[in-house]
């Protein structure tokens, strides 16, 4: 028996079930006049049709479309763990979501969501939960693009003698690529070199940034570990074949492999395809020169750190940071 059926029996009155699948924040802020685009639709269930009609009229009056979702016994279709739960669908979207509800799987979905929410701070923005519900219900989506930089992976590798591999250059290429693909709002997932590339783009277009995921990339002096000494102490001061030499190990199979395995607790979980394909790309003519040019150019990032820090302080994007010591 559903909770609403139990309640009806316990109190000896017909029960109309509504508002169980909308977060309070949406209920307060997202009501709209009838006929508005994107007006949220709420399902209403009950066994007393007169009472249901009155409740439906009332809900329309306060700013929401209404859908008759049948008798109370059907109202499991918008319980926790179903696509219609807290995803703020429109009247067009709601029927499909109700139809897609899976009674057997809903409790497990609900328990997973409860577990996830228990880890969130109390002031976690409720609309982010709605967004998560919408994405998992298939109402919202976003494109993921992960371009290879010039000189990396499957992208072209122009001749370093004339191209000039710098972070400025790479960031301009990626910015132009985003523009060509018509992305003017985006979240950035920046890892390692992605930081200096991404922060440059954000510095030029702070308004475009919606959110950041930062994984092992640096915008602070304190982020330099002793592993950087060969760069900072020698090559950045005076680039010669001698100062390049201590860095060459990073560009060979053992060095590349160590990037993946250093600090890994269970090496067998990391696919050898990673370093094998990296190394195959590194074996191309000029590839090592490109990497050394970028090692050298990395010094220009340090001078930009204060600018990026200021940009982050002012923009305060929603951010997730992963920073490992391994």
């Amino acid at each position: 028996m559903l909770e609403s059926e139990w309640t009806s029996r316990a109190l000896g009155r017909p029960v109309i079930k509504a508002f169980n699948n909308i977060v309070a924040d949406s209920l307060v802020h997202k009501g709209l006049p009838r006929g508005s685009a994107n007006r949220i639709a709420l399902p209403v269930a009950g066994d007393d049709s007169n009472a249901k009609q009155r409740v439906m009229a009332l809900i329309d009056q306060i700013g929401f479309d209404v859908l008759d979702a049948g008798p109370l016994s059907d109202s499991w279709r918008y319980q926790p763990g179903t696509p219609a739960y807290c995803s703020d669908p429109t009247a067009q979207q709601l029927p499909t979501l109700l139809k897609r509800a899976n009674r057997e799987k809903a409790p497990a979905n609900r328990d997973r969501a409860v577990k996830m929410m228990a880890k969130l701070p109390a002031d976690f923005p409720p609309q982010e939960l709605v967004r998560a519900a919408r994405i998992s219900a298939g109402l919202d989506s976003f494109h993921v693009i992960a371009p290879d930089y010039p000189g990396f992976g499957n992208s072209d590798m122009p001749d370093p003698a004339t191209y000039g591999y710098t972070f400025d250059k790479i960031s301009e290429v990626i910015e132009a690529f985003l523009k060509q693909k018509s992305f003017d709002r985006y979240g950035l997932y920046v890892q390692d070199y992605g930081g200096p590339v991404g922060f440059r783009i954000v510095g030029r277009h702070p308004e475009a940034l919606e959110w950041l995921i930062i994984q092992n990339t640096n915008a602070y002096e304190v982020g330099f570990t002793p592993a950087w000494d060969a760069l900072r102490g020698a090559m950045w001061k005076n680039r010669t074949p001698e100062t390049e030499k201590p860095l060459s190990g990073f560009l060979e199979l053992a060095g590349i492999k160590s990037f993946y395995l250093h600090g890994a607790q269970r090496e067998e979980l990391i696919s050898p395809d990673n370093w094998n394909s990296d190394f195959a790309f590194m074996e191309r003519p000029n590839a090592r020169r490109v990497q050394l040019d970028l090692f050298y150019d990395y010094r220009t990032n340090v001078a930009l750190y204060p600018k990026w820090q200021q940009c982050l302080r002012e923009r305060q994007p929603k951010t997730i940071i992963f920073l490992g010591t391994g």
Partner: protein
Amino acid sequence: MKIGIIGAGNIGSALAAHFNRVGHTVLIANSRGPETLQDVTQRTGSKAVLLSEVATGADLLVLTIPLKSVSSLPEGLLAKFPANYSRTRRRNA
């Protein structure tokens, strides 16, 4: 119409404000008594009453309380609430 609301949490007070805004008379009650609802009534334009009074003369009674609290509602709460009148409830589960 006259609407009674039991439960003055986020959902109960949101509904109170909406119902008041569109012209309904809203009575609101919780288990702790009307004196604990000053903030809510000021924000929502509703009137705080005792639980025993919230259903009196109401066209619609709205429950915005946890399921487990339903069985501890006072006896006789619905004595003056006719059996053919509607009642709406709201729960997360």
